[in-house]
């Protein structure tokens, strides 16, 4: 015990160092790109109507933070994603498990859900705006269904991919229906569920931006699209950077670690 702690203590700083070095080498190329930007815009005297200078984007950032509009857009977009995704997962996981338990039912239904997960997301924008009108309902519906079909399909696949011998093992150790669900089916399908959420959220995010360009008056997509009407490229570029940064945060800080903590430790999947 004592030696192990000692070992950890000795490794501590060097591991922290390695992390810092890793972060720096990761950020360095982005920094170079960022430094190149003003050089190119001034050297070639780029028309701000085509591409903005760094100063202009910075000014747009300061202005939109000061009048609160940036946070209003971000809040609206994230709120829609949160509601749509949460609803989608809550409905999809139980449904997917229920359908996946029987191999007959799941092979029968697989083509159906494959078809619908192909359509999921953006293709529903026209009908969603017809059904719910322009606004929160239509956009949330598009996100919901991008998540719903893909997560259901993946849960279905996940449950039907659980080896029969694991279900047998649990049954012979005395697991009832409830325990079978919480101890075997749910954790067994979890890798696929997480992958499904990651893919579904990727589609949902795109669907969100597209839907906001068409069907609302607040949100990041709307911010971009309105700026286009006035040729305000600095607002567009600012919006793009915000969208990229938000997605990187969601994907790298929320989804990827979740995937690593479960799937890779359990040795269930070898994914990219």
């Amino acid at each position, binding site marked *: 015990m004592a030696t192990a702690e000692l070992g950890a203590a000795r490794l501590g700083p060097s591991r922290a160092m390695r992390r810092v070095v890793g972060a720096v080498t990761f950020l*360095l*190329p982005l920094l170079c790109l960022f430094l190149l930007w003003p050089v190119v815009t001034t050297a070639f005297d780029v028309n701000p109507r085509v591409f903005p200078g760094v100063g202009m984007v910075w000014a747009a950032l300061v202005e939109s933070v000061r009048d609160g509009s940036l946070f209003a857009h971000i809040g609206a977009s994230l709120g829609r994603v949160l509601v749509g995704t949460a609803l989608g997962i809550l409905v999809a996981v139980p449904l997917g498990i229920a359908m996946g338990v029987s191999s007959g039912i799941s092979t029968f239904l697989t083509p159906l859900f494959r078809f619908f997960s192909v359509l999921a997301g953006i293709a529903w924008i026209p*009908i969603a705006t017809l059904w719910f009108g322009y606004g929160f309902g239509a956009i949330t519906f598009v996100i919901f269904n991008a998540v719903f079909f893909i997560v259901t399909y993946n849960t279905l696949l996940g449950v039907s991919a659980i080896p029969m011998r694991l279900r047998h093992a649990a049954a012979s150790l005395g697991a009832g229906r409830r325990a079978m669900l919480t101890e075997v089916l749910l954790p067994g399908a979890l890798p*696929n569920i997480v992958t499904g959420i990651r893919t579904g959220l990727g589609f949902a995010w795109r669907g969100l*931006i597209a839907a906001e360009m068409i069907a609302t008056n607040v949100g990041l997509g709307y911010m971009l699209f309105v700026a286009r009407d006035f040729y305000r*490229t600095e607002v567009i570029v600012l919006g793009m950077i915000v969208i990229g940064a938000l997605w990187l945060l969601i994907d790298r800080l929320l989804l990827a670690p979740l995937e690593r903590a479960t799937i890779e430790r359990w040795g269930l999947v070898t*994914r990219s």
Partner: protein
Amino acid sequence: MNPALQAWGYYARWTARWPGVAALVPFIPVVAIWWLVASLEVFPRAFFPGPAEVVRGFVDLTYKGILPAYLEDSVGRLLLGAGFGMAIGIPLGILVGLSQTAYRATWPIILFFQAIGDIAWLPILLIWFGFGLTTMTFVIVYTVVFPVVFNTVLGVRSVPRDLPRAALSLGAPRWRVLTEVILPGALPNIVTGLRNGLGYGWRALIAAEIIVGTSGIGFLMFDARRAGSATEIVLGMIVLGLLWYAVDAWILAPIERATGQRWGLVTRT
């Protein structure tokens, strides 16, 4: 013998012989329920058209030549985008996969641009290129490139180190190692990447057609939305789904199987 069991037996044998049957039969109850709900008028007709109306719409639009023309536009744009996407993505992926320096220099930038996402580029593309083919092709290329790059890198790295060594010791020059070992070794992953990329590209195309709006299935749907015609929207969705389903199930998936699974290389989820 139990008649239900017998029926299941027939079904199992039929679907084993013609897998297409297994892909179609599950849709029969769905269409039946759709028809039932529509004819009971649970929802207003204008919001929820029945199968018969959609079929009529299909015949009508096909006869007028609108549907085939729009379909041709959409598929053409997708193919063009996919072609450029692969032409950029595969070499880039191989370079990044092989060279640690290239990886360090470009990987963060690739991740960042992937995160921005295709559709967020639309407004600025409209300013640069206007409403036209260039804008749409750019968006699709942008979507296709990233999954192809990611999976090509993965594929290149998954080639066992002893394989290029074996080739070198058998007298292969370096560029032959690339074409004879690295590329085939990465092929299953490249196909997977293309499959994912087209899945995203397809959605990007629809969004672009809705927003850019000159022609194509996405435009058809959004135009119908403006006119409040649910029939054509539903028709557009079905055409999109069927087309993608056909491309994915009958072209991409078999290619993936023929390469990866045949060679026992697949590491798919």
